[in-house]
């Protein structure tokens, strides 16, 4: 296909400006290249200084970190890193210095321990986040670090992205209606923990409400599981007739299901004309019951487990007053860890390997004796399960569920997380999901504020409402990633190979090359 440019041919022989520049760049000695790169970085920083001082400093810091990283480890790399930390200490940027010190520290841990050290440190930092969130430095362009409630939102969406990754990344079934599972989970929680069905009165372990209150009130802990199971069943029901279909037909059918669920949620205050109020229509179901461990369990653990998340907390640790949002945040972390654990265990299980086989070549997989329907249905059910749990938890956190939350955009938003992070790679999906969820909740608004404050042509301020264009921005992300790096930011090696080399339907002739037929 493309010839290997640069290493063998001299720059003059290469056709095309881009390839010639590339060849000249690779032919240069290392020292010269480093010089040019550093010069460009300093130039960039000087230019950005006129836009926003902080951004210029950020560019300098990042390039300093990059170039110190390329020094010989002892003593220069260590000395350089220490110098960077000391500079920020002198500038009294305590949080930034600490962040960099932790980051540098992790890379000095020997590789065989680092595999464990990085996740452990990451989990610890996540758990401690409410304590240091207000003390963190301001990031250029993006502004302050996200709120703890944004943190809950991010974790919930990362859970959904990890769930969708099972369907899209592991099994290769494009699901454009994942929001249906989110909706099912959320409405399950709403039906069994609110005043919605007020003609029944049934309580089972709910906390923080009058035991004579009308409606069904089941404890949230059980409901999370129930929402997952019901959503998984729903996934199986959707999957059984549709999973026989080929990839793009399956995509459109799932999209259709997503839209139908949205319509049902919006219009079922009078369910199919029967007068039965199933979803309370566009007004949604609100409020939901609180989450909590109940008085006896709380008393028994000496107050460690709060009786009720919403009416808790007078304790103050490390100078931070514990909020109910913090409790939701920690619970979400536990749920996410469970999701990640299950997803990791599934990946190389017998079922996971069957998914990979189906993704790579369905016919070959069937010939090897993999039951296609059953395996695909399991992918659907497992993906749906986590979507349901996440949806139920988020509904409880917001104490509401509205049909407007279950629009097609959300399906694409979650799909975008998976694609950006890297289909099939759980770490990539976590990073992509966290970043996009952050963008959606706070990042776009902050970025917009920054743009409107700093980018102007003379006296003309653009005053763009960036959050309004959220879906277009996700569209650009999807397009750019699919065109230039289809394996995502942190790719799974196997998916990357599939995308670049292809696994089946390999054409004999390359008709993409400007209509010349090239025999491979």
């Amino acid at each position: 296909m493309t010839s290997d440019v640069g290493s063998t041919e001299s720059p003059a022989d290469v056709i095309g400006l881009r390839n010639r520049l590339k060849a000249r760049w690779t032919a240069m000695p290392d020292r010269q290249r480093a010089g040019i790169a550093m010069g460009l970085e300093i130039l960039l920083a000087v230019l950005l200084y006129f836009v926003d001082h902080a951004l210029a400093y950020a560019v300098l810091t990042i390039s300093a970190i990059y170039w110190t990283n390329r020094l010989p480890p002892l003593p220069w790399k260590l000395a350089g890193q220490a110098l960077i930390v000391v500079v920020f200490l002198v500038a009294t940027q305590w949080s930034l210095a600490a962040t960099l010190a932790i980051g540098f520290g992790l890379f000095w841990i020997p590789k065989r321990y680092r595999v464990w050290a990085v996740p452990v440190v990451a989990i610890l930092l996540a758990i401690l986040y409410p304590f240091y969130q207000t003390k963190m430095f301001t990031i250029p362009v993006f502004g302050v670090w996200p709120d703890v409630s944004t943190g809950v939102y991010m974790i919930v969406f990362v859970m959904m992205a990890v769930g969708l990754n099972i369907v899209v990344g592991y099994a290769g079934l494009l699901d454009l209606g994942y929001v249906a599972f989110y909706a099912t989970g959320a409405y399950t929680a709403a039906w069994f923990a609110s005043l919605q069905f007020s003609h029944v009165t049934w309580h089972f372990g709910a906390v923080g409400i009058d035991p004579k209150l009308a409606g069904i009130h089941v404890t949230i802990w059980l409901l999370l599981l129930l929402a997952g199971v019901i959503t998984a069943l729903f996934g199986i029901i959707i999957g059984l007739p549709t999973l026989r279909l080929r990839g793009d037909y399956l995509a459109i059918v799932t999209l259709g299901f997503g839209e139908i669920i949205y319509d049902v949620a919006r219009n079922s205050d009078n369910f199919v004309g029967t007068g039965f109020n199933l979803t309370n229509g566009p007004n949604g179901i609100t409020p939901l019951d609180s989450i909590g461990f109940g008085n006896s369990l709380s008393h028994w653990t000496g107050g460690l487990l709060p009786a009720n998340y919403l009416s808790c907390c007078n304790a103050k640790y490390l100078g931070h007053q514990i909020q109910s949002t913090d409790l939701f945040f920690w619970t979400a972390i536990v749920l996410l860890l469970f999701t990640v654990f299950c997803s990791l265990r599934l990946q190389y299980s017998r079922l996971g390997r069957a998914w990979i086989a189906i993704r790579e070549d369905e016919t070959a997989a069937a010939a090897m004796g993999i039951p296609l329907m059953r395996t695909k249905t399991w992918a659907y059910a497992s993906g749906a399960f986590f979507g349901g749990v996440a949806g139920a938890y988020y509904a409880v956190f917001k104490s509401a569920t509205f049909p407007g939350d279950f629009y097609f955009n959300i399906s694409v938003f979650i799909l975008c997380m998976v694609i950006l992070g890297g289909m099939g790679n759980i770490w990539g999906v976590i990073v992509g999901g966290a970043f996009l969820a952050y963008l959606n909740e706070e990042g776009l608004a902050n970025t917009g504020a920054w743009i409107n404050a700093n980018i102007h042509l003379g006296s003309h301020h653009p005053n763009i409402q960036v959050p309004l264009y959220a879906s277009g921005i996700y569209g650009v992300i999807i397009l750019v990633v699919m065109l230039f790096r289809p394996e995502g930011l942190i790719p799974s090696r196997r998916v990357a190979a599939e995308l670049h080399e292809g696994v089946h339907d390999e054409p004999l002739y390359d008709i993409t090359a400007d209509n010349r037929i090239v025999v491979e």
Partner: protein
Amino acid sequence: MAADASAPTLATRFKRPSLISAFGLIFVALLLFWLAVNAVKAPSEFMTIFLIGITTGCVYALVALGYTLVYGILELINFAHGDVFMLGGMFTITMGTHFFGLKHGMGLVTVPIVFATLLLAMLACGLLNATIEFIAYRPLRGAPRLAPLITAIGVSFIIEDVGLAWKGPNYITAPDVFPHSQIFNFYGIAYEWNKLIVVSITVPVLLALLYLVQRTRQGKAMRATAQDKEAAAIMGINVNRTISFTFLIAGALAGAAGLIYSLYVTTVRFDQGFQLGLIAFTAAVFGGIGNLPGAVLGAILIGLIQAFNEGLSWHAPGSDWTEAIVFTILIMILVFRPEGLLGERTPEGG
């Protein structure tokens, strides 16, 4: 009697009288019963709604043909198509009102203006659609099948936001230039001029398209490329140019539909394209995707279903449920008869 003669054909047609086909027949029978009751209860209302349905179906047909052309040649669901249609509507409004000064009640001058706007909208949308193909789909020609599908969604979102940035988040209104006076009123069955104009713009465009695909050299190249790209390339057909041409034609159809829709309905909003695009795609699948007459048939049927659902008075679910009904049809067609009404069953179709 005649039953004896037709017995063998019936037996071959329904080899396995399965539960599913029985359910399907019962469903169709109930639907016909529902329509019949409505027709008997209010015949004039029924016929008026029928004519509305035909009109809506014509608009859907233009959009559905774009889906079916592109699917036929690339096996790609071009999600961005509906949004190109929406931009066509916006373009019509901008061009018509700001450039040509189109407004209500201009008399016969309206005709050449609308015609010029139609050509410009078709050209603009055709070029836009071909550009989309060049940027977003061509680099992925050799990639796995789902890759261009995913970029199509991305492009759809981008174009939607282009419309949002261009015209803002609210409905914009087009000048109401089509006359609303009745052509005839036959025992309460009303038929207005604006509906006839919609049909009379749609039908020539459809005939021109059929001629192009079935009778011209370029159409032959399109059909050959749709059948087998490699073989077509060996035969000396410029495959990439043929695909670009197909996108141009599809975009032009979307532009025509955009003009008709914006002048008939007179309101356009940035997010209308995606919904209408999905309905039109359903129509294309209904008729048999890749099949041009099928797309028109499917679009008319979908238009009728929508009109009956929203207009009939006896036990109609109402406009809240239109999308749900359309998507239910889509799912049922894909699951039970993926080749559609007029399509042929292909090995990978099911």
